[in-house]
């Protein structure tokens, strides 16, 4: 009834797989991956959960969409995948290597309260050393520097509440 070809990016774009999806009837698909065609019966059950029957095998899959990507939860595994349609896949630039170079912003990965500043501005810091301490849910978490360098700026004070994503410090 309809069909499409998709490229799935894995491991942050380091690997890719091609899939052809053909819709046979409502909820029924034929999906070709690595040369094998699977008969798939897909049923969306509740908030983000899909029941998949691939042949007779039953899988309960949770699809957690985040931006362009989707995190696929399946039994004890989580697969971060990005799905592109053919056109977008062709236009895609090869993925660049992500490194911690130049000025790096340290942001709060969790909402909480700043309870300590371990490296004041101007101090040298080594990769993986803590710069600040955030308390969340009664536990302290160090915010670490991703590189060797110098603390250029601290954007918060001890005692201050911070939201997730808040700028905490800059390492040069």
């Amino acid at each position, binding site marked *: 009834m309809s069909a499409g070809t998709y490229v799935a990016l894995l491991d942050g774009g380091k690997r890719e797989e091609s899939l052809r999806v053909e819709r046979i009837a409502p909820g029924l698909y034929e999906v070709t991956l690595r040369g094998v065609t699977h008969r798939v019966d897909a049923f969306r059950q509740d908030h983000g959960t899909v029941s998949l029957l691939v042949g007779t095998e039953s899988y309960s899959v949770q699809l957690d969409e985040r931006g362009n990507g989707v995190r*696929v939860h399946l039994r004890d595994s989580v697969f971060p995948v990005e799905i592109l349609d053919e056109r977008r896949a062709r236009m895609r630039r090869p993925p660049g290597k992500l490194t911690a170079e130049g000025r790096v912003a340290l942001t709060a990965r969790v909402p909480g*309260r700043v309870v300590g500043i371990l490296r004041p501005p101007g101090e040298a810091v080594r990769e993986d050393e803590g710069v600040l301490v955030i308390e969340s849910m009664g536990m302290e978490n160090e915010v670490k520097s991703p590189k060797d360098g110098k603390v250029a700026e601290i954007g918060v004070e001890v005692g201050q509440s911070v939201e997730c994503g808040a700028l905490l410090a800059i390492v040069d």
Partner: protein
Amino acid sequence: MPERRPIQKILVANRGEIAVRILRTCREMGIRTVAVFSDADRGALHVRLADEAVHVGAGPARESYLLPERILAAADRTGADAIHPGYGFLSERADFNRACRAAGLTYIGPLPESQEAMGVKTSARRRMQGAGVPVVPGSDGPIADEAAAVAEAERIGFPVMLKAAAGGGGKGMKRCDRAADFPKLWQAARRESASAFGDDRIYLEKFLDGPRHVEVQVFADEHGNVVHMGERECSVQRRHQKIVEESPSPVVDEPLRAAMGKVAVEAARAVGYVGAGTVELLVDASRNFFFLEMNTRLQVEHPVTEMVTGIDLVRLQIEVARGGRVPAQDEIVRRGHAVEVRLYAEDPARGFLPSPGKITYLRIPGGPGLRDDSGIYAGWVVPSHYDPMLCRLVAWAPTRPQAIDRMLRALAEVHVHGIATNVHYLRAVLDHPAFRSGAYDTGFCTAFAKELLKPPDPALEPIALIAAAVAAHRRDHERAGEFATRAHAPGSTWASAGRTRAMRGEA
């Protein structure tokens, strides 16, 4: 049972799952209840399950749940005649206990003097030594300043444990391997302790390598009866936080249980204890045990004992507070095996970062032998201010292997969407050969850290890709409008297209 103090309305001075746990037993006993809540907890389950609820301050615990005067004002306003402190927060604060009694309220717990004797962990240690019970070497009392603490640590010999004098539950607890790390850990321990207990006193203990952490549940009434209810094995800990508990302990046999029980009962007697308490012991590889501390309150893991003995510990706490008696030691009969896990809002894949936020979908499984104690619901926003525990699940079965398999089954059915949890980590713990064998100690989570954080199963990758591709195709298909004309299920974007599939929410 003569009821000398009629308890008719209990204020539960706590939040989350333990407040829910206590409220449930109160309701079953026909006792009216009062909840307290902070700004962050207006929507919490314990508020809706209580008969009455009173706002006690801002989100941070030290501006609400840790303020005795706010709790007492709430009791006064609602006419509560008793206070249940739960665990954490004010539950081991003798001053709060005393203030409750001064206000004419029944405090559901021991006398403040017992709390002081045990709460200052070091005086408790001295008493135990006096009674001939071996204790772990450590400082004689809380240490006033950092310089003295470093000196004491050198005397005891590294590695040492820094522990909150007022503490418990892993809060304010740090392991220090060498003098250079001491100042930083000292400050961190004091801050955590102050935040968790409103008390920043710290003491030191020798760190024992690879001991087991086993605790004994004791119960005493004001008529001089003290009994024990067997042990709980609590050696699966990460960052000194218990994750998995079980009873019986795989290393405790009947003679050892009797010996531990005897010591625990003596410890309780030594401080004139009344109510529910827990004597924590360290057990070494030769099954020698050392007194560690006594917690003068209910423990998180009390349901493990409830499942094995059939006794509702909260009900017994209330009955004892009314002046009732504990059952005789030989009336306490144990059956089968119970395993508990703590489901935390944290992300093991991101270094166990806390993961507060909105729960968008929730399904906690049931079935035979399973107990769910949770303080959450679909739609609840887990606050960042408090302990990250979402839910306590306990599996009971006639044997240990069956209880483990039951819990593994249950965890595979848990659905929590919207926030990250440690559910996969818990499954990895339970399924680990060292855990299954029973031969594990408090070093378990560290020793097997890598194995417990499993990479995705490559055999499942094709299925994950198929699921993602089908979802993408469905979305494209919907955008193309093909469904728009024949969708007949209002509000559904997964509309069906034929009579026989009319009830399908097809993907």
